[in-house]
């Protein structure tokens, strides 16, 4: 079987950026929102939050 062509160095190659986000209001309701608000207020990432 033919291998996919890979002319780039390393295993990762960037072509584009993500599209501009839209700013919307989250509904401040439910356990997942409260976890999100906690992370945002303490400036934590997911993995930091997982460890706590």
């Amino acid at each position, binding site marked *: 079987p033919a291998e996919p062509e890979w002319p780039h160095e390393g*295993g990762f190659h960037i072509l584009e950026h993500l599209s501009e986000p839209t*700013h919307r209001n989250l509904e401040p309701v439910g356990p997942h929102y409260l976890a*999100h608000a906690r992370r945002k207020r303490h400036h934590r990432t997911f993995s930091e939050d997982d460890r706590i």
Partner: protein
Amino acid sequence: MSDSEEPQQKTVIGIAFGNSNSSIAFTSLDGKAEVIANEEGDRQIPSVLSYVGDEEYHGAQAKSQLIRNPKNTIAYFRDFLGKSFADIDPTNAHSSAHPIQHETGVAFSVEEKTDAEPSTLTVSEVTTRHIKRLQESAADFLGKPIDGCVITVPTDFSEAQRKLLSEASKASGLEVLQIIHEPVASLLAYTAREETSHPVDKTVLVLDIGGTRTDAAVIASRGGMFTLLATQHDYELGGRQFDDALVDHFSKEFIKKHKTDPRENERSLAKLKLECEATKKTLSLSTSAQISIESLAGGFDFHSTVNRLRFDLLSKKLVDQIVGLVESVVNKAGMDLTDINEVILAGGTSHTPKIASRIQQLFPSNTAVQAPATNPNALNPSELSARGAAIQASLIAEFEAEDIEQSTHPAVTVTPHLPKPIGVAIHSPEGDEGKAEDKVYVFLDAETAVPARRTATFVGTQVGGDVLIRIVEAKRESVDVTPPKEVKEKTNGTDEDDDDDEEEEEERVIKRVTEVEKVIAEALLKDVKKGQKVEVMLNVAGDLTLTITARVIGGKGGIRGTVPGRAQ
């Protein structure tokens, strides 16, 4: 002194405060929300207060006073809160105490005490008294005082209205922890039931058909977080219009027999309305219902029956109007009916089987319609808001007021959302039966709030070798995949097919497809053995920095790459 011994558990409840009915709910120790019945055994407590002699009546007892004592009975007042007299629509209050102009907005004049001047009660005061009665019912049931509550309001409630509601509740001795939106509360009542730490991403339409109004909302549910995408309201569509359809039907029957129109006399009309509402409720549960009113008008009794089929015919126009509202709100969200994964029917009128079946017909068959008539496991539509409020109340019960305020502040709620779905396309290796097309697996759907992360596993390759993983922005489209005529003729090879041309309209098959719109990055995972599983994790940070981690399950190493956000 005994601080350490005192259990700090707070008693909190959820209140659904409606124009027509209100309900109260609490969350039991095992985390299940339950709706509380008041002393009269009602879980749907009419939002009505009535004054007879020196007594204040509330709920169903007050509602029955609409016949004998309409002038001193206050009903349908919630939407008057925080409005100026000029802005209100008093139609619903015609058969009870009329709203009057007051310096604070709207008020009612009722005889609260025998042999005394009528007193003027502002809408805020009426709300305070109503909440006080609800609170007392909850405290009696739970056997302890209530420390706080979460109240639900429609999405179009203004800041001023929310503030007044908070104050009115506080005046009744009940602290409002948070005011939340009705459709969101209904959605929470369902998602809390799923009991999973990774809720499914879906787009939900909440249709709340109440007594005096109908509200529709499209909500993106992503990772258990909710974003309102569009809302629409109809203030002249609700259970009352369904009642009126029955009122007109029975009035005509009564006129035929007795030559008197019961709608012309206030008291007869009030009697008929009350009974028609009960008949309508019966028709939601059984296929025929009786109505029987003593001395309806002109001294004549009235007995009759109606079946569900007739009621469906009488209310067809109203159901069409509901369908119109649904189409319009989905359109407003910039979506298609096929984008909606689930429909939640809320509000008392949602018990009507015909409404649920029409909604089910409107959507593709894989769209779940949560209503008693279409899903035996559906929750009671009347209880959704109160349950959702109770769940939210239990979640924030232990929070300090300051914490709640900070967490609900726009600085926290306003969040970037992805405009396009982000996923992964794994290139099928050549030689794989010619299936060269890329399949996009969507990790993060459009309208997902960031930061967010998702993980999925794939079978890397069918034949062994390197695996190319492309991280893409995708687009979802509805494509007409109706088999074209020519193909049919070719396969059949006969001329008879020409006769079928006119049926073509009916046979249209719409399919949802996900296509690559823009490739963001590529990653190459080397030397993956045949059939090995590959785990891919995508993480999008708050600044739109995208990180991908891919590894062979059980293998060593793997690759990790980062696409910086635009701002950097």
